[in-house]
């Protein structure tokens, strides 16, 4: 009780010593914030910086901070020497294809799991959650053999189907969470007005869920942009490479072209960062609900 009075008394009239210690605390905190943030962002900063120096500069000068030269030349040679656009186009094609299949299927499934109470519902929810635990390394062997049997190796269709194995459970999970936030009353009103359950779903639920559907599609896209193992295993010809395989091709080259490598990394990061910025609003919910994927 005595100490309590003491502290509250001190707070009313701060002494010079106290103001100084407060200042030191604030300075220390500012230094901490700056150090931590800079340390975290540094590798990313270095990538961007190294993509704007002349080729060969990094190996010769080992720059740590700001370089003394600036050029866009690396980007020109990157696009000339490597089929970056093909990689991006392939990724768009494959991820777009799997999204086009995933979204309708997952929307119907999420709607069913959300709005109906039926036998086996809990088991199915648990089952879908469990499929998210499956590492790609557990699926790679059977998928490879099955695809080999059906002639799907090294085809766009094959990779697209393989991508569905991780986009579908993820999409069901995220949409399930989103639909929970839409009150069922809207649909019930439509039912009372004579809509069939499916009619209510199409005319009421889908329009209301559009932002969530868009977010899910972007989420899937981000996952597809990141996917590596399945693409690596199921693709053999370089004209079908997706972006991650294109980037991987830089590693292990005898003559490491650091500037091109970093320029390609910047090119591959831009769409991901933009999507991330758009999705940030959903990420907290999405992470808790669908974030089983890494």
């Amino acid at each position, binding site marked *: 009780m005595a100490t309590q009075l003491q502290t509250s008394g001190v707070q009313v009239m701060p002494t010079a010593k106290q103001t100084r210690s407060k200042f030191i605390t604030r300075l220390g905190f*500012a230094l901490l914030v700056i150090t931590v943030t800079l340390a975290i962002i*540094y590798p990313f900063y270095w990538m961007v910086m190294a993509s704007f120096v002349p080729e060969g500069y990094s*190996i010769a000068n080992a720059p740590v901070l700001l370089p003394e030269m600036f050029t866009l030349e690396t980007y020109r040679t990157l696009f000339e020497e490597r089929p970056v656009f093909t990689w991006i186009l392939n990724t768009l094609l494959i991820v777009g294809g799997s999204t086009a299949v995933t979204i309708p299927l997952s929307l119907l499934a999420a709607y069913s799991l959300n709005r109906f109470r039926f036998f086996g*519902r809990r088991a199915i929810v648990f089952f*879908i959650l469990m499929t998210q*635990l499956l*590492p790609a390394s557990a699926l790679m062997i059977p998928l490879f053999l099955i695809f080999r049997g059906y002639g799907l190796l090294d085809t766009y269709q094959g990779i697209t189907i393989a991508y569905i194995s991780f986009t579908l459970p993820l999409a069901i999970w995220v949409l399930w969470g989103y639909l929970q936030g839409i009150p069922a009353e809207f649909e019930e009103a439509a039912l009372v007005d004579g809509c069939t359950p499916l009619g209510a779903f199409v005319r009421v639920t889908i329009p209301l869920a559009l932002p969530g559907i868009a977010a899910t599609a972007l989420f899937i896209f981000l996952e597809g*942009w*990141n996917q590596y193992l399945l693409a690596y295993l199921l693709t053999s010809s370089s004209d079908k490479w997706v972006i991650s395989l294109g980037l991987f091709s830089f590693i292990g080259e005898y003559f490491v072209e650091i500037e091109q*490598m970093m320029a390609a990394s910047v090119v591959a990061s831009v769409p991901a960062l933009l999507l991330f910025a758009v999705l940030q609003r959903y990420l907290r919910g999405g992470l808790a609900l669908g974030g089983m994927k890494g």
Partner: protein
Amino acid sequence: MQQQATSRNAPLSARQQQANRRPLLSSRLLPYLLLAPALIAIALVIIYPIFYSLYLSLTDANLLRLSEAEFVGVDNYVRLLTREDFWQSLGVTALYTAGTVFFGYFMGLLTALILNQNFRFRGLARTLISIPWATPWLVVTLIWYVMFNPQMGPINVILQRVGVIDVGIPWLYQRDTALISIVIVTVWREFPAATLLILAGLQSIQPELYEAAEVDGASRWQRFRFITMPSLRTINLVVVTLMTIWASKLFTVAWALTQGGPGDATRVLSVYTYQEAFLSNRLGRASALAILTFVLVFALVVVYFALLNREEQEA
């Protein structure tokens, strides 16, 4: 609602009768019909492959002579469990998982505590700290491939200029540092997820708790120890669970940066599975390995979920 119903009493009852009859028939089947396409797709791309894998794990299938595969029972499992290779790989995976979860959580907590303070440029700091998480995995890999370069890699250059080392360390190419390097890369990419989750947890703690503690003369550390940490218990479990699952899925970094090497220093279970299947052609043993990995992850997650459930019931 009530008023509307009574004022339009007659037409509605007729409509409702009609509506009542239809759902009776369909509402039983409808949920299953809606689920069917998704479940069929999952059965084709997940369930069938998993059962195929289960079957393969009981044979001596070889990638080059698949048709000659013979049933060998649990031979593959017995061989794996009695071999040092498997336990070595499991050990590496456990170390990697423990490292990423521990340091990822620590970084997440540290940055979340910082971002929970009121200061200018907080939004900017938050955005900058989230950037690694938004960076594609392969880009992360390439960045750190350069960062760790023995000659010009900024990490070595900085350490040399500061005077900590004389000669650049070949981080990725020697046994002692390869696994640590991969943990660093993974933590760098994943910790912002922990930051955002923990920050959300911090912001949901009632400020009155801190005020009351301050009035009672609790020190900063005591407030952290007795208010912050207990309030974060559920979030902590979620973060640890997610990071464990992510660690169990790691392939990209360990494969792209070190191919599981040098030797077997970074050969986590997923890399070991890949090598067994597609470099040694031993599909049977590799399938057994994949199944064992999944069972292990599954068991761990069940434990976490049980803890989480208990936590929620106590709350």
